[in-house]
């Protein structure tokens, strides 16, 4: 009995949400915004761990700190910086959206337009941001300094 129910639910799911009037959460953009929120959150957490420890080297010696920070200055690391900024920015914007969904009376009604809005803001910031960092990285890599 349970398996038939699960099967028919899965079939209805695969048939698409449109037929059900968009009442299903699974596969909805809202679900993917949640998945992305988790992934970016976990990634930022791991960087935070590393970053607190590398900064703590200022308590060891100026030289120890400078040597380790040097690894962040390699031109290829602009890609890492870009990934970090992209992850933090998405997490911040989507976090504001989550707060609006939770605390604003019309939040649930506008959750989808708000998702497109935060993605648009993300692109508006990330496109010039990427351009700036990549140009700087290429200049450091090929132009010397």
């Amino acid at each position, binding site marked *: 009995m349970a398996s038939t129910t699960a099967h028919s639910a899965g079939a209805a799911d695969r048939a698409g949400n449109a037929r059900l009037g968009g009442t299903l959460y699974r596969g909805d953009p809202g679900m993917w915004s949640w998945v992305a929120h988790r992934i970016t959150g*976990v990634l930022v*957490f791991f960087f935070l761990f590393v970053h607190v420890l590398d*900064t703590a080297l200022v308590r060891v010696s100026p030289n120890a700190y400078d040597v380790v920070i040097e690894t962040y200055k390699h031109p290829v690391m602009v890609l890492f910086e870009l990934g970090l900024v992209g992850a933090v920015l998405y997490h911040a914007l989507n976090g504001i959206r989550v707060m609006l969904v*939770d605390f604003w009376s019309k939040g649930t009604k506008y959750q989808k337009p708000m998702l497109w809005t935060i993605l648009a803001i993300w692109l508006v910031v990330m496109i010039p941001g990427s351009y700036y960092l990549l140009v700087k990285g290429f200049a*450091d890599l090929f132009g010397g300094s």
Partner: protein
Amino acid sequence: MSVTDAPFSVDKPRSPQRPAARRSNFELYSWLFMRLSGLLLVFLVLGHLLIMLFLDDGVQRINFAFVAGRWASPFWQFWDLTMLWLAGLHGGNGLRTVINDYARKDQTRFWLKMLLYVSMIVTIAVGTFVLFTFDPNIGN
């Protein structure tokens, strides 16, 4: 629609079947903390990233002298301390939720959370210690 198991009247106080009253509100406060700390972290972290990666020469200008110059100001000390604590607790609480969701065995869940709590305590304690005992003349 199983409404039958819901009683029509409220139990008498002190009756033995009222577990709800004894539940802790920890998860409610953790939910609220994620939103309040998140709101502050939006400004603290995005400001930090803007200053460190984009202004002046970005990461290229960061070295011991740069850190010493910043932490000479109580404003940036307070900024970094607040950011450290809020980010550590916000990130740790987020990972706690992720572990609770995906760990399948109780043992795995327990040990992953122990690992998480130890790393949270270590990073927050080390970071706080460094901020309070920073010595710009350590190399001399």
